[in-house]
């Protein structure tokens, strides 16, 4: 490993241990934050600032990727043109709105409320269709007991949640829905979450050991 790699690994491990120690021993017996707790807070604040700077870098990356698409006249380059124009205009409105220019503030809000929000809501609606189609395909793709249970449970939850036309709330269905949601589904979800928590723990330890180095160095 080169010096740069060793240095970044040492820094990452050291700060990782400090933050971990801050989580474990960050509070004194009287409830006040300990030195480790204060240090952890400081490191996390620096991390938040760095994450903010990363967003700026990320937006430049987005800009360069789409500029490259336009330059190479790739398929769908027109969408890249629209993206870049929208990005620059929103940035400009945001900047002007910061200096209390009422028109810019209104345009900046409109960009979100009249363009981005409806588009994202439409995608959400599209998701309903996609999921319905995926559920139908599930039985064709993987016809087994688990798939049948999965779909039957989804169906029961759906009919137990929505009110029926002319009948309103059907107690037997809503009780069944509550039982499924509170007992088998909650038990399964907790089991999965415990597995995820254990996976998170071991992933964190591998990073603290320097085995996983996503910050410039080969894993191993």
């Amino acid at each position: 490993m080169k010096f740069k790699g060793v240095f970044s690994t040492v820094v990452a491990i050291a700060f990782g241990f400090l933050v971990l120690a801050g989580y474990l021993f960050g509070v004194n017996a009287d409830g006040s934050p300990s030195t480790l707790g204060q240090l952890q807070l400081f490191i996390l604040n620096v991390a938040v600032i760095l994450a903010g700077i990363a967003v700026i870098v990320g937006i430049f990356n987005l800009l360069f990727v789409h500029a490259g698409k336009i330059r190479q006249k790739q398929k769908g380059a027109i969408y890249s043109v629209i993206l870049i124009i929208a990005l620059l205009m929103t940035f400009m409105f945001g900047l002007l709105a910061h200096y209390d220019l009422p028109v810019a503030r209104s345009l900046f809000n409109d960009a979100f409320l009249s363009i981005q929000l409806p588009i994202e809501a439409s995608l959400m609606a599209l998701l309903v269709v996609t999921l319905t189609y995926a559920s139908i395909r599930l039985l064709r793709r993987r016809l087994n007991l688990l798939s049948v249970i999965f779909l039957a449970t989804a169906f029961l939850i759906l009919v137990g949640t929505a009110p029926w036309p002319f009948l309103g709330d059907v107690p037997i269905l809503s009780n069944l829905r509550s039982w499924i949601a509170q007992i088998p589904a909650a038990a399964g979800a907790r089991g999965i979450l415990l597995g995820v928590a254990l996976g998170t723990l071991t992933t964190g330890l591998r990073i603290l050991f320097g085995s996983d180095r996503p910050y410039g160095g080969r894993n191993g």
Partner: protein
Amino acid sequence: MSDILLGLVGFGIIFLSAALMGALTALRRKSPLAFREIHAFTRMRQAIGRVVEDGTRLHVSLGRGALITPQSASAFAGLTLLQRLAELTSAGDQPPIATSGDAALAILSQDTLKTASQASAQGAYDPSAGRLTGLTPFSYAAGAIPAIHDENISTNVFMGNFGVEAALLVEAAERANTFTLAASDDLAAQAVLYASVQEPLIGEELYAAGAYMDAGPLHTASLRVQDILRWLIIIVILVGALVQLLRAVGIL
């Protein structure tokens, strides 16, 4: 329980896990461990082989797990897999691409791809291969879908923190008739992926990717540690339930 006692318990669990990982890594060098077969990883290996043979491209989507949140663990698992897959496909004509919905994650994906390309014989690195496609869940999905359709992708791996927007991504991948492997640490996304993907990974299987793709001895050991801790949790839950039962009937 006081904060200090909680801290000590936390430290104990972490220390136990670390000690087990170290011991099992040392033991593994003497006798290799065997795992149950996860069909998704077997099929992924075959798909990776086809990527190299066909001269097509691999796409790894890392989700939007911000690095300063607990969801970063799934993002790190995705980055480990990205590095391993980039190494495995380094003999191919086209380097893999990585998309993400978090800026810091996009930077790390670039770094990972750069490291993998430096280790390969070709050594060519394309800075646009690691991309930020959007900062909100749906803009991220909408930005990643064109990459799936337009960049000669034959294998899509979605590994990280996704929400329900993952359905749009995997639907695009399935429509493009590509091999799709998907995993998320989010419960809603897991349900969605179970319904829509050929090869979904459920629960902690996401974190097993490194071990199954031979990413290193510590990955293998960490799987065993997860198994041991899981058994400990089961025992604690059963003992706790038994104690509650005995209290309820007045024996304790």
